[in-house]
């Protein structure tokens, strides 16, 4: 038995996660979302407001 944490963050990782579980490797899925892509003007405003 292997215990550990897997950060699921790539396309197809759900399949990998399922496979690992089938093999009795105990993994804990951590929800992850990709960083928000901001339009440049919005990004500039947010940067300007950062203290």
């Amino acid at each position: 038995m292997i215990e550990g944490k897997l950060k699921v963050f790539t396309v197809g990782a759900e399949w990998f996660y399922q496979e690992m579980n089938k093999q009795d490797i105990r993994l804990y899925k951590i929800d992850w979302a990709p960083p928000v892509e901001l339009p440049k003007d919005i990004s500039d405003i947010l940067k300007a407001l950062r203290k």
Partner: protein
Amino acid sequence: MTNSKEKTNSDISDEIESANEEAVNRVNKGKAVLVDFAPAKKVIPGMKDDLILHAGPPIEYKDMIPAMKVAVQGVLILENRAKNLEEADKLASSGEIEFRPNHEFSSAAPMGGVTSASMYVAVVENESFDNKAYCNLHEGRGKILRFGGYSDEIIERLRWMNDILGPSLSKAVKRKPIDLKVITSKALAMGDEFHQRFIASSLLFLKEILDPLLDTEAGAEGVDFIAEREQFFLNLAMPAAKALIDPADGIDYSTVVTRLTRNGVGYGIGVSGLKGEWFVGPAEIPKGLYFPGYSEEDAEHDFGDSAITETIGLGGYASAAAPAVTRFVGGTVKDANQMTMDGYKVSVSESRDFLIPNLNFRGTPLGIDIIKVNQTGLVPKSNTGIGGKVPGVGQVGAGISRAPIEAFRDALRAYAKKYGI
């Protein structure tokens, strides 16, 4: 703005912090007491015969979704301005009738939100800031005017509500004004989140109104009408939210959201420091569960002013308090908790009055911040009813709808322009 050009961006960040603190303090200090029911024309400032109020951001009659158009036609028949839907459609298209958003008249009403001069509205007073807010009466679920339902039975029920129920409720609450903030706090601990589930609050309201209402003309029939409608409190929670958030509007530099509302075409937001401006993105079809016989193909895009509840930390942001709702709208308990947790990430503060027992009595997220929404992409979500796109069908399901990020982007752009960032 007079001196924004002279301020550095760091100064502006300090101004935002204190303005937002002021905004949430005003919501926390506010009161929401139901003091009357009366015809819209008698109590809503600016209301008149040729004016019809509707949900969402501004929209012309020709651009309205079919359900909202039928609701407009229905109220013109109710007002004896037309004999049938065809006549009403002609009148509504003629330019003789003015259409304006509820939000611009201190009002908020569910789904079509259509309100005309003679319709009875609830009057909610926030005595801390000397303002009032209004909402039409709750008809029920299913085939009803606010969902674009139309039939003789629907119009008859509305006439009874205007002639008997409204005046009776008026007498009852004049005898005993009802503190809606207290009911909301109690019912939140009983599993209501105040956008979809109102079972506890409607019962608590009924308990308060029962005795005085029995002494009126509506009597037992009025009591039955309320008892049969487990969302009756929806049309009280909404003006309560409006009465509480309005004093937080118009604070210079504040980035707190004071309006969230949909008309089936657009989803509009308003921001405290940009008073009176609308920022609109597309309204989506909510994701959820459908009543037997219906599917997403039958669904209309999101509509109604009910997302006003999210602006004061209720609705989607109170989902963790209402696990029962998630099943109804097709989610899981984990999803419900996540909606509240996401709310904390984009809010300025937490409610002092609305506490979630299963989060160790943590206050609900309060004061949606357009800066944080833009930073995280976590747009407000609501548990909402889904209206049918074919007029006359009414409600076809319930689900979760999201505010469009485009509206928050545009609001931030306008904010930067106004304050010289």
